């Protein structure tokens, strides 16, 4: 196989990876143990494989691994610690928005990209940013309240 080596920043650390030229970023991440990035459709329609690349939420199943070269990638493994989850994770947990949890890492990362850009998003901004993440368990109602909760916290000047 025609192996290539690429390097990019992954969750704040500079990393090198051997890749296959036709490999997707999703496959590369999972193969290297970053399995919080979930496989849902492999065609960019469900958002379960969402990661943040240079500040934007992207479907890692639609990104070739080589396209990550030189970029800054954040996966779910880069957010929160045991007992002290990220504020978005915390809000989802508190609101009861985690049912099967398969879509949750992608939701968290789409939300993070949104809140990093717009700390207090209006309803339409939330709809726009979260539209690409499918969830079949929750009816989105509690995910929605979690987003509103994080936004309200920012509005009050809470820690981001």
């Amino acid at each position, binding site marked *: 196989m025609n192996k290539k080596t690429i390097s990019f920043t992954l969750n704040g650390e500079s990393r090198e990876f051997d890749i296959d030229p036709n490999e997707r970023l999703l496959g590369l991440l999972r193969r290297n143990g970053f399995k919080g990035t979930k496989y849902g459709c492999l065609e960019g329609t469900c958002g379960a494989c969402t990661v943040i690349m240079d500040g934007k939420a992207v479907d890692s199943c639609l990104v070739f691994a080589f396209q990550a070269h030189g970029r800054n990638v954040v996966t779910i493994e880069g957010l929160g610690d045991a007992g002290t989850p990220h504020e978005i994770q915390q809000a989802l947990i508190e609101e009861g928005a985690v*049912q*099967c949890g398969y879509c949750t*890492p992608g939701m968290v990362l789409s939300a993070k990209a949104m809140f990093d850009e717009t700390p207090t998003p209006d309803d339409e901004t939330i709809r726009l940013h979260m539209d690409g993440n499918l969830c079949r368990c929750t009816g989105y109602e509690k995910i929605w309240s979690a987003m509103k909760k994080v936004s309200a916290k920012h509005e009050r000047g809470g820690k981001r």
Partner: protein
Amino acid sequence: MTSVDKMKVVHHSVRKVDAEALSRGKHLFTGDLTPADALHIKMLWSPHAHARIKSIDVRAAEKMPGVRCVLYHGNVPKIPHCTAGQGYPEPSPYDTLMFDTKVRYVGDRVAAVVAETPEQALDAVGAIKVDYEVLKPVFDYDEALRDGAPIIHDEKESYVPIPIPYEPQKNIVAKIGMEAGDFAKGMKEADFTFDQVFETPYAQHCPIEGYISWAQLNPYGRIVITTSTQVPFHTRRIVARALDVPVQKIRVIKPRIGGGFGCKQEMLLEDVVALAALRTGRPVLWALTRAEVFRSGRTRHPMRIRVRYGVKKNGDITAIGLDLINNTGAYGGHGLTVMSCAGSKVLPLYHVNNIHFDAKSIYTNLPVGGAYRGFGATQAYFAVESMIDVMADKIGMDPLAFRKRNHIVSGESHPAFEALGEGKPGAPMTIGSCALDGCIDKGAAEIGWSKRTPPGSKTGRYRRGIGMSIHMQGSSVPEIDMGAASLKINDDGSFNLNVGATDLGTGSDTVLAQIAAEELATTTDKFIVYSSDTDMTPFDKGAYASSTTYLTGEAVRKAAAKVKSQLIRVGAEILRKKPEELDVDDAHVVTKDGSAKVSYKDIALRTLYETEQFQIAAIESHVTHKSPPPFAAHFVEVEVDMETGKVRVIKYVAAVDCGTAINPQLSEGQTEGAVLNGISYALTEEYRFDGMGKMMNASFTGYNILTMRDKPEIKTILVPSYEETGPFGAKSVSEISINGGMPAIANAIYNATGARVYRAPFTQERVWRAIQESKK
């Protein structure tokens, strides 16, 4: 009525035990746990809806790079079985072989390639040469039942393991029916009669994690299957049969699973990964692509439902007739039970003395029907709850008042409970808890029912309407399904709670821990819940039929009660009291007068290490004798574009009586998820086939499920009741709220436009056509 107000854990929104780990993307799912050296499977799927395999040549594929084996009908056990994950013996035909010489739908199995990489497996699939004799396919209800129609299951081996009507030579999978009173007489007594046909589409569950399984041999040669399943114990039994190996040789583990909604109440991949692991000695993974999930996974049965009703001017319903045809597609699992539930979970809702119910499940050369949240009731409710509005309209009665006048109440029974069972008579039942009137009142207030105006009063391009529907479901399959739980204490007063019950994202691990904690007067965090591993946990039927809280929950409560009595017995010795003088409180055995206490920890240490040692532990089982219905009233406001037929849902209210909500937040979550799924099913979801039976929209771009952008405001109202037969008064909650989308929205469309839709989903074109029709 027992009060839930004094409960300290039950009826509280305790945090879901797995929520934090899931939110942090921990490696909890089947695909996260696969060994790196696993082989991969790719399937050659049938391109034909109906064909015989005249010959198949896998030699070239076997020689391809990386290929470790190819499985096809020539080299696997050929044992008829049923893939539906039901109790044993199943009320479904054994009409499936692991690989067959005949294919019966586009997407049926032909041959599996096992290779080092998925790409190598896929390449080798392309090298398999198959010579098909293409047969005439059957896609239509009437065509399947026509004399001389092509016979889809013409093989001799298929049979039903219990005596239920099975006539494969007529393409009939099962028949069920009931008569009560005199239907013809009831129709004659009516002031108005109605006769209407409704149709529902093929639809799919769409869990975000599709079907995925992997298997490996342990060092002793046993087959360990890790799989995204709702039914680990049934899967073990079915795989054992299909592979002709003893149950003892198989272990099935369900890790966290990424949604199911019924589609994983099925043995779908596990036989192939197990056999591939046996043949290769290597771990073997099989994950379906999204298109494969759509085409070869399980679906919601499409139904054609003829409804006849008779009603008097005063609002008495004199007769109901339901004749339904249920399309199970190419294989017959769940064919009988889905249509049985279309009767037993729907007919009892209203007082009608004269009842006719006749249902047939038929084979066609289309994708395979399965269990899907709502389970037949969902389809039948579209027809019945639409007609309730039609009748109310005809007699000039408010549809809400008409429903209130006629619905079942506590203390009443219905002949359908006994007549419509699952391969044997059902369980007769008197309704215990029922807060349906409260659901109707609270839901009506929330949606603003009193401000509702008739369709004739509306003008303009965009018209708003309000609709409602009411529902019941069940809680478990009575006298058939069993759940069990084991509980033991640890040194520090924590407990291991092991259950076969299958948390598919519902939160049942949490709910069951709450039940144990309430009984033992401690907190949920003291329980280490381990579920769904056939080697390690007691048996459980699995996650289906709205049964885990009601059925397994009671097994857990009983186990906890037994452990409690052991704790009190030891506590009595320590405190030098009689057991009758003691109770439990805050993780202690206490005297009722509060004068002395001893902690669970101290009791555990004494019994594990010090005096009269024994393991404080219990295992309990539970079978239910009734299936108490939860009740719900759904209300929806829609806006219809009269020029394009586009329907927008503005607000949806689901008022639900699930008895005691063990965890109100999780009960709301179940309701909201079911509601949006129901709205999605009503408005967009539908398999589209080409003329050859191939599903054309097998992706989330062609088969649209609603997103956060589409979500209306969903308001859940939990209306309490107390079901005496359930753990701490609980009934089920998971399925019922998927039933409202179609009828409530259809009724709201009528209220907005004066046009009625009889076929779902309510696409712009169908609604537009109905509006044009109503203008004639």
